[in-house]
C-alpha cells in the first residue's frame, strides 16, 4: 500500500509522539517539520482515512484544563501502519538515489 505524503507525515508524527500522540500535538509536529500551516480539516479527515485503512487506532482521551475541559482524540500507530510508513520511506530513499537534493 503506497501512502500519500500527508498520510506519511501524520504516521511519522504519531510514531514520534508515542503515547502523547493526539490531534493538536500531531498538528504541531507537522507544522514544525513542514513550516506550513496544517488545517484541522485535513488533519481529521486524514486520521479517519488512516484508521479505515487500519494504519492507526484512535480513541477519545481524558479532558484537560488547557483544552477547556475538552477531550483529546488520541492516536496510536498500528503494526500495519509502521509497515506502510517504512515502505513509503524506503521507496522515497530508493527513488531519490543520485538526485541533487538527496546528496546534501
Amino acid at each position, binding site marked *: 500500500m503506497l501512502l500519500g505524503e500527508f498520510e506519511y507525515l501524520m504516521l511519522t508524527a504519531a510514531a514520534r509522539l508515542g503515547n502523547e500522540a493526539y490531534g*493538536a500535538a500531531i*498538528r504541531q509536529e507537522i507544522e514544525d517539520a513542514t513550516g506550513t500551516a496544517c*488545517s484541522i480539516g485535513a488533519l*481529521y479527515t486524514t486520521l479517519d482515512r488512516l484508521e479505515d485503512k487500519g494504519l492507526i487506532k484512535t480513541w477519545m482521551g481524558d479532558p484537560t484544563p488547557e*483544552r*477547556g475541559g*475538552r*477531550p*483529546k482524540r488520541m492516536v496510536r500507530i498500528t503494526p500495519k501502519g509502521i509497515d506502510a510508513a517504512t515502505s513509503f520511506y524506503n521507496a522515497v530513499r530508493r527513488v531519490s538515489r543520485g538526485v541533487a537534493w538527496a546528496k546534501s
Partner: protein
Amino acid sequence: MGEVVTRIGCVLADLTAQLLESHEREAVRGDLAECGVGGWRAFREVLGLVLRRQAGLWTEWRPWLALVAVVLPLGILLSHASRSWADSSALDVSLYLRLWDWSYLEYPGWRRDLFRAVWSMGLSATALSVWSWTCGYMLASVSRRTVWVAVIAFALVVFLATLGSTTVARITHDKFAGHFYGVVLPRLFRTAFVMLPLLWGIHSRRKGVIRPTTLFLGAVVVITLTVLKSPGLENSLVWGRGLWGEAGPDRTFGTSDDPRPLWPVALVMLWPTAYILATALPTRPRRFDAA
C-alpha cells in the same frame, strides 16, 4: 473594534462546530483552544472540516434519496400550494379588512361567509403545516447528518420554485397592498406554514421515535387533509404552470366536473407519511438473529 470582530469569528466557529458530531466537535474545539487558534482563523478551520465532512457524506445514497424523494418533489408542490393558498387567502383577508363592519355578524349570510373564509384558510394552513412536518420528520430519518444541507436546499426550492409561474389571485388596488399581498404574504405563508413545521418535524424526529398509536392517528389526519385539499393542490399547479386540461361535461374549464389528470400529486404528498409509518412498524425477529 478588533476584539468585536474576533469575537464574531469565535461565535461563528462555535456555531459551525454544531454541524460536527459531538465527540469530534469537542476534540476540535479543544485542539483549537490548545493551539491558541481563535477568531476568524478558528472559524475557517472548523468550516473547512465541516465542508469536508459534508462532502464525504454525499458519497452515500441516503442524502441523495432525501434530495430526490423529498426536497425536490415535495418542495415544488409545497411552493406552488403555499403561494396559491396565500394568494387566495389574501383575497379574503383584504376584503374583510377593507370592508369590515361588526354589524355584518348579525346577518347569517355574512356569518356563513366568514366561517367559510376562516375554515378555508385554516384548512390550507393546517394542510401545509402537516405536510411540511412529515417532510421534516422524513428528512431527519433518512439522512440525519446532512439534514441541514437538505433544509437549505428545501428552502431554496420552496421560495424559488414558483419563479416563472403565475396565479389568478392577485391584489392590485394600491402599491403597498399589492406588494404586501403579492410578495410579503406568500413569503410569510411559506415561512410560517412550511419552513417552521419542517424544522419542528426534524426536531420531533431528533427527540425520539413517536409511538405507533400517535403515528397512526397522525396518519389518519394527514390522509384526511390530503383528500380534502388535493383539488386545491392540483389547481395550484394547473393555474400556476398553465397545465390546462380538458373541460368536463359542462364544457367549462375550472369547474368541479373537470377531469383531474394530476390526482397522483396527492399521493406524492403522502410519501413521507407512508415512509414514517413503514419505518415505525415493529419488525419480527429473524431466525438467525435469535441470541
